[in-house]
């Protein structure tokens, strides 16, 4: 009898656990049905965030034909690699053989100026890609926004790498099912691209492209060396990357924004100014993600820098330094890029051009344990993990540091 009871009890327990497990799984999956995937026709206009999108052309270019058709982007293809390599990035990808360019007419039917979105592309269910911002900017002549009531043709160039496709699919790209994604989960909408036109490269275009990517054709070499890693520069030093030189002009640490001349709240790029500056001009206390206010002093650090393109060609300035304290093991996020926000095409610099930029950093002392306002501060340019750096001991831990005060 006892054994029977024991067995029955065990079975009951197992049954309860099983029911609870199944109930939990049903609950976890109850939202799965929300996902809707709609493929829209590219023959009709589609409403997207106050704009009407009409696909006008879809052309699959051989890379040589693409470069010949849009010579303004040829500089990105001076190397057999890709835009990454040409822009000085160390990331390497094999050469791009094809480029899909989709021309979309965007009409702003809202009463506000609308920023042009970059739509990702998919191929079947298994491939996705987005657009290189520099490429998008140059091919569309730095077009970023559309005013109310206006309409414009915008080109969306998608680089297609052989690495990401099956051999047979890459050799028949025109026959693949490409779609543009215009909205995400749960209401996923794609514009299916049909009748993609192929544009093969002509003999002369191929010869020109070969010349462009040959070692002698590449003239993108910086005329001065990049600042090497593992470097700590004192006040007055200059940082050089990809032919652009950066020097510190001024550094201001303050708690009341009213003391800062030239303050512009619209230049905040990371947070809105209301999150950082209180009504009386004092820098707001630090809040956790859940909104809990933390004790401890907060500061804004504004650093004016001078950027000069010291190369002989146009460059895209791409510098996002972190602010570090003197011990080098703590940093805070950048939140303020004044000049770049005022002039949205500002990252592009002609040969010899000089640009003045104000960088801003929000520093919460409780988190960072810094001794502001007089502590030595450094900008770090690699963005790498440099937690073992120590400026006092002269240890850069692979980073590139430039003292700003």
């Amino acid at each position, binding site marked *: 009898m006892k054994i029977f009871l024991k067995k029955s009890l065990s079975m009951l327990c197992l049954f309860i656990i099983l029911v609870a497990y199944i109930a939990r799984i049903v609950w976890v999956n109850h939202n799965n049905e929300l996902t809707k995937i709609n493929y829209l026709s590219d023959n009709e206009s589609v409403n997207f965030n106050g704009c009407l999108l009409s696909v006008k052309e879809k052309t699959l270019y051989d890379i040589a034909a693409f470069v010949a058709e849009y010579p303004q982007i040829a500089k990105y293809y001076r190397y057999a690699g890709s835009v990454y390599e040409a822009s000085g990035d160390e990331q390497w990808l094999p050469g791009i053989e094809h480029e899909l360019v989709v021309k979309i007419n965007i009409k702003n039917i809202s009463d506000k100026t609308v920023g042009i979105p970059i739509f990702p592309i998919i191929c079947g269910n298994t*491939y996705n890609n987005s657009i290189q911002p520099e490429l998008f900017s140059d091919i569309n002549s730095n077009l970023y926004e559309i005013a109310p009531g206006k309409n414009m043709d915008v080109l969306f160039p998608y680089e297609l790498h052989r*690495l990401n496709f*099956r051999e047979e699919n890459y050799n028949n790209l025109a026959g693949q099912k490409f779609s543009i*994604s215009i909205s*995400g989960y749960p209401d996923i909408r794609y514009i299916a691209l049909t009748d993609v036109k192929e544009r093969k490269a002509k003999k002369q275009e191929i010869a020109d492209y070969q010349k462009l990517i040959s070692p002698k054709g590449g003239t993108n070499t910086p005329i001065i060396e990049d600042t090497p890693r593992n470097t700590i520069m004192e006040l007055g030093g200059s940082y050089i990357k990809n032919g652009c030189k950066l020097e510190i002009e001024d550094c201001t640490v303050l708690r009341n924004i009213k003391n800062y001349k030239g303050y512009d709240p619209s230049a905040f790029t990371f947070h809105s100014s209301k999150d950082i500056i209180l009504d009386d001009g004092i820098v707001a206390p630090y809040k956790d993600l859940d909104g809990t206010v933390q004790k401890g002093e907060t500061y804004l650090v504004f650093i004016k820098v001078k950027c000069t393109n010291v190369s002989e060609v146009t460059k895209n300035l791409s510098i996002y330094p972190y602010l570090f304290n003197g011990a080098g093991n703590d940093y805070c996020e950048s939140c303020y890029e004044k000049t770049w926000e005022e002039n949205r095409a500002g990252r592009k610099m002609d040969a010899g051009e000089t640009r003045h930029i104000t960088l801003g950093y929000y520093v919460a002392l409780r988190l960072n344990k810094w001794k502001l306002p007089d502590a030595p501060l450094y900008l770090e340019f690699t963005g790498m993990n440099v937690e073992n750096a120590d400026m006092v001991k002269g240890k850069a831990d692979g980073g590139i540091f430039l003292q700003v005060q």
Partner: protein
Amino acid sequence: MIRFELNRCLRGKGIKLAVLLAVLLAAGEFFGYRILFQETKEIADEIRRQQGFSPSGLYPSSLYEGFINGDAFTIFNLLYYYLFPILAVLPFGCSFFTDENSGYLKYIYSQKKKENYLLAKYTAVFLSGAVAGILPAIFSFLANALYLPAIIPNTLALQSHTNDSSVMADFYYTCPWAYFLVYLLLGMLAGGFLATLALSASFFARNALLVLFSPMIFYTALDYALAELGHSEFSISTIINPVGTHYIERITLGGMFLEISAFAAAAFLVFFFIGKKRERIL
């Protein structure tokens, strides 16, 4: 005879150790994925919200990307496939060596035909290795199913390792359970083969530890050798891991099954024929 050998396997310490190791791996992956990926994602969602974007556009994490076989974010996938041969051998892989050295084999051979015993031993060891090899995947799937929806992965979610050039990529994005079922079968085949490799090693080894680690030595050596030759796609560790990098150097699904089946057949032949001819019984 096969049933008798399987019973011995189920009553042994090895299977308990294999289950324990599988539970540890599954639990580690479960917490690792929850902490490292889910929380990071929640912070990213919060930052997006603060920046004025709606996080609703973000595709939710899927069970298929979160359990140990599909997890490309934590170290536990790598750890699982590194320890895979040990897991496979633990339940019953050393039993032939023990039988031979304890004198048990002499008793068996006096009662049963040699061929019958060898066949039963091979079958039991193969099955034990096949099951033990995939235990972490099953435990991990069951645990993660409690938190992650079995939603079909989406390539735009950027949470998956699989792209167009991966083996069975279409399956992954349309019928993921079938994709992982195929990998589970591959894992079982490889687990079975690696466990039976220990049987052949028993003929040459003088120490049980060497028998236990011989499949791992083979597995790792093959992986390194093929990597050196630039043919990682043929490495067993690459073939059985759904998060493998075989999309770089391609291999077909049929090729994957064929390779492991060929290894398993070779292991069987070596064990059976040496075992049959061998006279050394203590």
